[in-house]
């Protein structure tokens, strides 16, 4: 009888969703499969693009991190995959698709062992061990490029940049773009490698090959007032004033009021105001500036004043461009002009206004500190330009990494096959459950060449078998055999210059293993009732009730 009277114990709030156990873990893995299916086809030089429309904007992209971000995934386990893609993007900038696919493949391999009641912790332990082995092997076999030889190191960088562009829309011009990318990155200060100093501008119209590399800073003609066209548009060796000052006739203090007792004094107030602005303009011109650039507005009065004195001016210059100019000239951006002197002015070789498509661009080049550069991208449509920018970003990141880390491996699935072979060999020598699990890891690594071949429309199984056979050969010459995309065969991808910095692979394996382990270690999800809508309403109601009482105290 007592059983009937026992009250139900409410542990969790009403509406909380819980799921647990082995089945839940399998469910999580299934959820991940959805995410991976979406981006699977983007891998490799024959990978496809996705068109994603989020309400108003639409994006065409091939970049794993971008696609996952736009999908707006909420499933907790699947989100882990999104996070590793993002972390890979932040850390190395490329290989975001690879890392997600690899992580899922690890989970997929683990799934059957979980169904066979292998404890997830054992799987995790073995996976970690396998990942360590992989990293060790990468270090062993990665090829070091001699950076003391300038030409060789440049070549290496260009090849790496090109590999990153392989799968992108601009792949057919990868030689062209990888040269631009390498030039831009090598132009930076080699210690800091501050990528903010590479400006990427997009101008619609024109073909891809019309894209430009500018050794300096370029920005779109800013909004200008009447009088601007009378200013000269070309300077050789100009003196540049970088300002953060509003050059406009305006009230000095908002809210201030002048009391005038005598109407006679009226004019003096007006004169005083004019004096302030004229003094500012005068100081700038006296300091010897030919080009005045300000982050804030330059009004019509100032524009005309400068036009009279053959000085070029541009107001509302984007902040990042001004910062880059500051770095390039080695001069500070002045936030007041009262003490502006000749020494505070920057210098460059040439300043010119040029037509780019429909826009006019101001181009400043030839700075004493060679540390900044601008890439002007041309292309038919806005979405196209955006995708170009993302692709170049990947490539730039790779070059940056490759400069710091000068060991490379061969792509096209070659390194994965080599690691897979190595793991299987190793697994045979150990005792215990780890053996089978490390083999599972090795199998998961094969996904990269498999997917590459599949995307290219090849018989993936046949290619994979060929690869396995080649790699089984102990001859070290066969180490870099990967998928040959052009001829539906296998080839030495090191010789065909599919090069990647070893760092990408290290990071990818690390991140994928971490993510897989994380998902494997979960056996229960407790999901609170949707807080965002219900609770927000409640909170707001409470706030509204609170407000009048607070006011009532006075």
């Amino acid at each position: 009888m007592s059983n009937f009277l026992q009250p139900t114990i409410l542990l969790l709030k009403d509406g909380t969703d819980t799921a647990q156990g082995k089945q839940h873990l399998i469910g999580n893995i299934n959820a991940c499969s959805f995410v991976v299916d979406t981006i699977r086809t983007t891998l490799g030089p024959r990978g496809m693009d996705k068109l994603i429309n989020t309400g108003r904007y639409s994006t065409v992209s091939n970049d794993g991190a971008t696609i996952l971000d736009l999908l707006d995934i909420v499933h907790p386990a699947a989100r882990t995959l999104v996070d590793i893609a993002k972390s890979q993007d932040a850390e190395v900038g490329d290989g975001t698709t690879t890392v997600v696919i690899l992580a899922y493949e690890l989970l997929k391999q683990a799934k059957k062992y979980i169904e066979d009641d292998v404890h997830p912790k054992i799987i995790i332990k073995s996976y970690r061990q396998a990942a360590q082995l992989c990293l060790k092997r990468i270090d062993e076999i990665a090829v070091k490029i001699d950076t003391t030889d300038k030409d060789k190191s440049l070549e290496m960088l260009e090849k790496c940049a090109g590999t990153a562009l392989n799968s992108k829309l601009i792949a057919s011009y990868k030689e062209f773009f990888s040269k631009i990318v390498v030039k831009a990155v090598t132009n930076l200060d080699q210690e800091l490698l501050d990528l903010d100093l590479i400006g990427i501008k997009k101008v619609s119209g024109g073909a891809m090959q019309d894209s430009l590399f500018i050794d300096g800073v370029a920005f779109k003609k800013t909004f200008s007032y009447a009088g601007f066209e009378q200013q000269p548009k070309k300077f050789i060796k100009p003196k540049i004033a970088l300002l953060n000052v509003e050059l406009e006739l305006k009230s000095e203090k908002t809210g201030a009021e002048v009391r005038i007792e005598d109407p006679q004094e009226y004019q003096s107030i007006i004169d005083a105001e004019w004096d302030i602005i004229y003094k500012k303009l005068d100081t700038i011109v006296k300091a010897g500036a030919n080009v005045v650039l300000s982050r804030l507005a330059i009004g019509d009065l100032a524009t005309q004043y400068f036009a009279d004195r053959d000085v070029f001016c541009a107001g509302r210059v984007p902040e990042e461009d001004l910062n880059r100019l500051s770095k390039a000239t080695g001069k500070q951006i002045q936030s007041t002009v009262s003490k502006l002197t000749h020494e505070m002015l920057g210098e460059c070789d040439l300043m010119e206004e040029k037509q780019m498509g429909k826009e006019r661009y101001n181009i400043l080049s030839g700075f004493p500190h060679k540390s900044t550069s601008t890439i002007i991208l041309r292309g038919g449509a806005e979405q196209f330009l955006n995708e170009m920018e993302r692709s170049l970003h990947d490539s730039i990141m790779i070059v940056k990494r490759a400069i710091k880390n000068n060991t490379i491996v061969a792509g096209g699935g070659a390194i994965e096959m080599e690691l897979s072979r190595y793991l299987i060999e190793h697994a045979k020598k150990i005792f215990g459950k780890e053996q089978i699990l490390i083999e599972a890891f090795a199998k998961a690594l094969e996904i990269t060449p498999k997917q590459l071949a599949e995307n290219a429309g090849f018989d993936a199984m046949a290619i994979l078998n060929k690869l396995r056979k080649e790699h089984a050969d102990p001859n070290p010459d066969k180490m870099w055999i990967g998928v040959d995309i052009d001829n539906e065969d296998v080839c030495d991808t090191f010789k065909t210059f599919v090069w990647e910095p070893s760092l990408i692979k290290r990071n990818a394996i690390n991140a994928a293993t971490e993510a897989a382990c994380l998902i494997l270690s979960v056996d229960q999800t407790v999901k609170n009732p949707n807080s965002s809508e219900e609770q927000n309403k409640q909170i707001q109601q409470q706030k509204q009730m609170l407000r009048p009482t607070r006011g009532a105290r006075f």
Partner: protein
Amino acid sequence: MNIAFDEYGRPFIIMREQDMKERLTGPEARKANILIAVSLMNILKTSLGPKGMDKILVSPDGEITVTNDGATILDNMDITNEIEKLLVELSKGQDDEIGDGTTSVVVFAGALLEQAQKLLDKGIHPIRIADGYEHACKIAVEHLKKISSEITFDRENYETLITAAMTSVSSKVVNEFQRQLSEIAVKAVLTVADLERKDVRIDLIQVQGKTGGSLKDTQLIDGIVIDKEMSHPQMQKEVSDAKIAILSCPFEPPKPKTGYKLNIDSVEKYKKLQELEQKYFHDMVKLVKDSGANLVLCQWGFDDEANHLLYQNELPSVRWVGGVEMELIALATGGRIVPRFSELNEKKLGLAGHVKEIPLGTTNDNIIVLEKCSQKKAVCIFVRGGNKMVVDEAKRSLHDAICVTRNLIRDNKIVYGGGAPEISCSLAVSKAADEISTLEQYAIRSFADALDQIPISLAENSGLDPIETISNLKANQIKTNNPFLGVDCLGKGTENMKEQNVFDTLAGKIQQLLLATQMAKMILKIDDVILHHGQN
């Protein structure tokens, strides 16, 4: 979207608002995309060439546009589909860079995709097709360069430029006056062009339109037109040897920008204030007079008192002149924009030989024309036409003609029009295709077929039998080895476009091929379309 189920048979929620998302993948997605592009091409196709037809576009507010300019048509079609948007961007890209050929570029991109569909049905990988297209595009561009010719011109001899502009205008509704409009456009461009630097600032050509009159009355004014009238009806309407004060300050007592308060606590003070106010007006007029100006253009307004004073002092004046016009006037007359009366002096005045107010028709509508300006840095094209639609279309046609002229100044290479370069390229590309051993061969051959689309449409629009015409042309081009043979749209009796004097800029043609190929590649590469049906 496809739904996955968890261990309890409940659907997974993987994405936010999953049920509002729609997804098309693989071949279906590609098929749908291509279908859209092709249908858009079919809309635009009929606008190609001198016998192309116009479209009426009615905006949501009921405003009507009649045009056959590709970019304008696409821009005014309320487009929601993603692929269509891409094509709209494509024609805009062509418009931004070249300014002409906006229809052809979309037609060509559509044709490329239409051909690609056939290859996809054969099971060729889309990227192989795209690669083949790119390869073919390179061949075509090289070939175009080979068959291009150079034209020569200078400031005095610009007949060739006019011919080029006429080709561009020929397809528009205004083509009755193509000679006149082209001449105007070319002269305007030459006036503002910097032939040494090969730079043309189109902004300096002002295109003003007014309904009334006929297109024939359209003229090039060596100076500036302001759509305003003298501020006082009795002011003199004509000024010869005008010395113009260009003012960016109002004709009224200046106001400090800082907040102020004037304390008037006695009658004397009040009187003084009034006196001062009067004095301001007098001083201003005096300063203007002293500088020697005999015409005042003011960016701001002035009240009746000032107006009267100006009239009394025989200073014709115009108020509320727009900022852009001010700038153009300053450039054309060599004057300076003056922000305050005290800075006015003789050096800052602009000079124009002749300024007059012209009444238009009977509508009590006046314009002010500044002619014979001292510096020839800005010009104005004044367009007249029976109704607003015609005026707008004439403006657009002039824009195209101006762009063509500018492109020729930048790069003086041309190809002959009438579909001749396309046919020639098509021949060259299909010849090259046979030498390629890989799968791309098919794609390259398709590229050649797509190239035929433009002459086919030209022939279709001209009422010729397209297949017969094109096959004859191809045969003749090979037989005579003459790449200038094109579609004789106007029935002039010769297929030789060189004799017909129909030509396009080389830069424009190359750009068309490159942009269309780029776009076809982008669309072919998409295999997954994820749409969000949210609030909108």
